């Protein structure tokens, strides 16, 4: 829930400085520390303010006939300030400098639009012609030729980001009502041009953007009050031809018939945006207000009227809004907590209040939703990463063709029938990145059926990444793609099977048993290179202890899960130490196989249907599985809580149920087998010991309860004197 808190005035704005106060200011930029801002007014002055104290720390002016034309910024690396006056003259000064006339000066050959300063990197200078230079490159040769990138378009907005340690500059230009977006990477120097889809009746008023996982999200506020979201990948390393960006409606901030004027937009966090604007609905008087919207639930969280008018400029640094209100620069502190449905209905328990309340009985719908819906996007970025590792040659050829217009399901389905594997991957990525479909689940079902059908007809075709990616959308079930697991079994793709077992709620027992059989028969050594998720095993198998685990191949084929890679990599560094380990304690299977078996234990089944299929297991497999179950059971009993930590670890009930089922199914075999004798004996011994222990506990339970009953029975009466210690 976002809220506007207190409001205070940072400073008055001098109307005398050329234009009136209604014109706003040239810019407000973050200062060298979070509490300081650098204000450039429409005139000759740049002032550094300490926000919490509401007082100026320094003020620098250019000469009488000069004007500062671009907001002064702070170079976070050096602590210097940079400003441009009269479009071409660059000034750099420090805190202790007094007179701007005497500080470093460089006259450039082209007009500067803005300077963007980012932490940990050199400031970027954006020229009005669209060229971008880093400051040091520019200072090395101030008189260098600056090319004109945008012909006669006018820059309307620009912003810079750090993405994967590289500065990225994005700016929007306008020409005859057409809007273009440029994404400029500096190192290496790559420029992309996009065209913004045109809107009939309205035009963009304000832009803002953020990047995450190499995806740049551009939010754009239109004059009809709608906020659109535009996704752009920062992956392309090669310039391509101009593309048209499609946009999706994120938020509608006004009712129809009203026109937004002089508005601006700021992103607060992933669910909240702030809109400052003047609502002009004809019968009423125009009123200006600042409002915070929740984009997830599309609701107005809070708003504040600004009766004295604003310049339509809004900055937002460190949980504070800065805006001109009347003749002053006002700071409004806001709070923005992540919103969730639970919070919206007031049901969210605050988990932070006390750590005693670690167990939350509430389902966090927010997180659930994020897992479900957010995963296509997370997935994109991951696949994008992996793809970048591979050769890009293929892509270059057909990417332009594909990206020109958005992909439809029909197109994708027809492509699946005949395109090459990598093409399909590429297309699927494209498709999922635009995924804001209403019938997402059905569509994904169609796609996966198409893929599986082709797999069946064409034995060499097996688009592993695509399948994994589709399963990870969490939109699938066994009944949507009945053949998928059969194909995976045929290819012995254990990773895919694991995912299916973990995510499909409706796997038939026959298939579960087939998987179990396959897992038990796979050699541990052959599993070592595979990409099995070991989360469920980590809590009880010390992977380094199991000396079967040797060095894992560092090159993970698909690099699917970055987390996994990290976990694996830390194992690599530890050389397996020679250990004398009791065989009892040693896991009878390798960690990968254990993880796979856990997935089986975790899946849903019905005893009646499972039993006949369990009988298919061979005696050796039964013994192995039984040994593993016994190992789990003993491990589990060691813990007081009788449970393994972690999401997908089997519970003691599941272990017991499977053990009973297995013994039921193969009782005669197990009794006859000589090698099972020891196993059964130890199992029996263990269970008997436990039963005896519990019966003893039951006996003393009664007396303990009696003790408990006697203790708090003390009646304090109307008066007592007690001791109390507060530490």
């Amino acid at each position, binding site marked *: 829930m976002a809220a506007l808190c207190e409001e205070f005035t940072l400073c008055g704005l001098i109307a005398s400085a050329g234009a009136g106060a209604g014109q706003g200011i040239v810019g407000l930029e973050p200062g060298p520390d979070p509490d300081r801002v650098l204000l450039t007014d429409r005139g000759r002055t740049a002032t550094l303010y300490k926000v919490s104290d509401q007082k100026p720390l320094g003020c620098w002016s250019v000469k009488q006939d000069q004007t500062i034309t671009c907001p002064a910024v702070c170079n976070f690396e050096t602590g210097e300030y940079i400003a441009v006056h009269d479009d071409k003259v660059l000034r750099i000064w420090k805190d202790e400098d007094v007179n701007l006339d005497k500080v470093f000066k460089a006259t450039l050959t082209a007009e500067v639009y803005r300077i963007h300063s980012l932490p940990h990197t050199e400031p970027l200078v954006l020229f009005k012609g669209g060229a971008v230079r880093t400051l040091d490159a520019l200072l090395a040769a101030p008189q260098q030729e600056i090319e004109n990138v945008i012909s006669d378009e006018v820059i309307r907005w620009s912003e810079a980001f750090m993405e994967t340690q590289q500065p990225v500059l994005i700016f929007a230009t306008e020409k005859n009502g057409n809007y273009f977006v440029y994404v400029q990477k500096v190192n290496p120097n790559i420029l992309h041009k996009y065209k913004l889809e045109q809107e009939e009746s309205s035009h963009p008023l304000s832009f803002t953007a953020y990047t995450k996982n190499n995806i740049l999200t551009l939010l754009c506020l239109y004059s009809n009050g709608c906020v659109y979201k535009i996704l752009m990948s920062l992956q392309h390393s090669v310039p391509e031809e101009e593309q048209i960006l499609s946009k999706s409606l994120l938020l509608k901030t006004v009712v129809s018939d009203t026109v937004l004027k002089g508005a601006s937009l700021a992103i607060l966090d992933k669910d909240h945006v702030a809109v400052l604007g003047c609502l002009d609905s004809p019968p009423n008087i125009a009123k200006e207000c600042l409002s915070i919207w929740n984009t997830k639930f599309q609701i107005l969280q809070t708003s504040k009227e600004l009766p004295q008018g604003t310049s339509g400029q809004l900055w937002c640094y460190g949980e504070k809004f800065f805006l001109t209100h009347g003749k002053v620069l006002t700071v409004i502190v806001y709070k923005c907590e992540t919103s969730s449905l639970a919070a919206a209905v007031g049901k969210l328990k605050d988990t*932070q209040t006390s750590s005693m309340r670690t167990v939350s009985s509430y389902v966090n719908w927010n997180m659930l939703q994020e897992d479900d819906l957010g995963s296509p996007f997370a997935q994109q970025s991951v696949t994008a990463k992996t793809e970048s590792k591979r050769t890009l040659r293929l892509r270059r050829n057909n990417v332009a063709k594909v990206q020109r217009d958005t992909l439809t399901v029909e197109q994708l389905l027809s492509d699946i029938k005949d395109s090459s594997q990598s093409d399909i991957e590429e297309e699927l990525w494209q498709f999922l990145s635009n995924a804001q479909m209403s019938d997402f689940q059905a569509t994904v079902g169609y796609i996966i059926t198409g893929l599986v059908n082709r797999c069946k007809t064409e034995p060499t075709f097996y688009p592993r990444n695509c399948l994994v990616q589709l399963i990870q959308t969490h939109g699938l079930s066994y009944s949507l793609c009945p053949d998928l697991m059969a194909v995976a079994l045929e290819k012995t793709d254990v990773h895919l099977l694991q995912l299916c077992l973990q995510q499909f709620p409706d796997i038939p027992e026959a298939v579960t048993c087939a998987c179990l059989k396959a897992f038990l028969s796979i050699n541990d050594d052959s599993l070592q290179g595979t990409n099995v998720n070991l989360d469920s095993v980590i809590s009880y198998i010390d992977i380094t202890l199991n000396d079967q685990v040797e060095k894992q191949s560092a090159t993970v084929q698909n690099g699917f899960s970055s987390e996994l890679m990290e976990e694996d990599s830390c194992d690599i560094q530890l050389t397996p130490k020679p250990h004398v380990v009791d065989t009892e304690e040693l896991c009878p299977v390798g960690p990968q196989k254990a993880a796979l078996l856990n997935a089986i234990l975790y899946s849903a089944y019905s005893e009646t249907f499972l039993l006949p299929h369990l009988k298919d297991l061979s005696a050796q497999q039964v013994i192995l599985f039984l040994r593993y179950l016994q190992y789990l059971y003993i491990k589990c009993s060691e813990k007081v809580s009788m449970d393994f930590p972690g999401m997908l670890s089997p519970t003691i009930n599941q272990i017991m149920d499977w053990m009973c089922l297995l013994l039921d199914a193969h009782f005669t075999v197990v009794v006859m087998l000589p090698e099972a004798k020891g196993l059964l004996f130890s199992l029996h011994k263990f269970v008997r010991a436990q039963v005896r222990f519990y019966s003893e506990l039951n006996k003393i339970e009664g007396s303990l309860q009696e003790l408990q009953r006697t203790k708090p029975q003390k009646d304090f009466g109307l008066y007592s004197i007690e001791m*109390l210690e507060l530490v």
Partner: protein
Amino acid sequence: MGEFQVHRVRFFAYVPAGIRCLAHSPRSARLALARTDGALEVYNFAANYFQEKGIPGHETRTTEALCWAAGDRLFGAGLGGDISEYDLEKLRVKYSLDGFGGPIWSMAADPSGTQLAVGCEDGSVKLFQVLPDKIQFERSLDRQKGRIMSLSWHPSGTHIAVGSIDLLRVFDVKSGHAIQRILVDRRPQGLYSRECVVWSVAFLSDGTIVSSDSVGKVQFWDSEKGTLLETHPVSSSAVLCLAVSEEEDSIVVGTSEGAVYQFQLLPVKWGSAESKWVRTKPFQHHTHDVRAVAHSATALISGGLDAQLVIRPLMERVHGKGYDAALRKFTFPHRRLVSCAKKAGLLLFQFPQHLELWRLGATNSAGKDGDILPVSRAPEHLLQLKSKGPEHICCSCISLCGSWIAYSTASRLHLHRVHLENGSVSVKRVSKVPKLLCSAHQLLCSADSTSLFVASDEGAVHVLKLLEPGGCGHLQTLRPNSGSAQAVYLLAASADGDWLAAAGGDWEINVYSLRHFKPHCTVPAYNCAVTALAIHPVTNNLVITHSDQQVFEFSIPDREYTTWSRKVQQHGLHKGWLERDTPITHITFNPKQPAHILLHDTHMFCILDKSLPLPDDATPLMNQTALKQLSEKARRGYAHAFKICKKYQPLLFVDLLEEGSLVVVERPLMDIKTQLPPPVQQKKFGT
């Protein structure tokens, strides 16, 4: 750190009076509440539901109806037949006017707030005009048979719906004639049928009348045709009250079984224009009759004979997790009812019509944390002082040495000199108490028991000199420089006798110098109600708590907030602290530990140790049990400024005695429940 002998007192037999009626003013976000003993309370919803104002009860005044009219003026009417206006600045009844219609059962202000309609025992509905400083009888509507139990204005102000015995009537206000008469079903009971009392009516803008009656039905009527639209049997006993939300899409009703139901106007089908009243949510927060309900924009408010005020937020209307998003129950007043003579070990309990003086017991053994020590001397009930006259006591105090007891009713201040000599108690009334023109709202004795401070109207504080062997004289009257219209309701005097702090209804805190009898300074305005004040005996810092749970420390000598206070504001208080339910009602100090502030609310008491770091939201606020398990050394790393004890609840009072032991006054809810009359018999499963 701090080990205390705790005198755990549970013999304060305080029983709060039941709630008779409620009136919510959405405009000022205030709730007026009248109790069965005639007392009136005003809760400010904007200040975390703080009980901002209180007017003590009166033996003969039984308020049956309350309403806000003409802005923020509050009117009450009762079975005495009088209509009174309350003066919320001077905290008393401004004037009373006889309605000349016998006992008044109901009253409502017209939508514009300029007229009051009053329903009387003799069957008449009388209209009174609200004038700027009085009300005036205007006319009577046609008199009918049967007492008028309830009435409601149509939102246009042209008609009044009236609930009587067995029937409903609709009056045309202009002509004064009854234009509709609707018979309400009686309850068949054997061969006879019992009369049906229409306890409450509401007139909706579409002409629908909602009635709730003693048969247990909520019924919807068409006022034009006089026909029944819908019937909802709600209870097997009476439905006593109902209230409609401002948007007229939700109704709350209260039954004599203690249940509260919400009705909502919902579309019959999704997207359909036709909508129907549906009983949606039942709540059972009360054990006894729910005599009054109110419907605020975000919550259902109910009050009953079990003296509980329950504010139940409607989750669909509350956005976010503010203070108003949680269920609130108020049983105890946000005022101090206990005073303690620290030096003498005496407790003075204030009841509506008498005071009780008790001497605390003693022990001669020691023990460790959690031990219950043998009591060597039992506590002793020394004295019961009955106040004369019908007026209830509004405030009382005992001097620190226990030799002076003062109390005040709405019109008189009483002072008694108490002599305690080896077991025998004698009390002498001081006969010549200076007649102050206005009533006292709070009393306080100075630390050396030589003066008595009387908080009064218009921001004034009178200083009376206490003379031995038993006399008193008026010394000075302190008034704020700014001039305030509101009464002072909190006082704090410094131990050295130099300073006096007073907080008034406008939340301004004035500090006076008692040496010069002059205003010294004003604490910077903070826009929230002050709930407690105290001056530190060593540093003369004024500690202030507000109803939004903020704590401030203001240095009186330096006339500024202390650095610690600034640090607290900068750091922010812990979330768990800010989300507490009830306001801090008393602050005290430990002279041996100058860094400690002892505070308490209804559910906890806390030692605020200024020398320790403030906790941030990640650390648990309640860490006493965890800390006790750690070693002495490890504690240091985890200890934070708030040392909270929740062992004693509900807490009415905590103070530190002279010799360093704590006195804690508890009033368990079960003890109150046993004092209440038996509730309506309800059949439970298996009985």
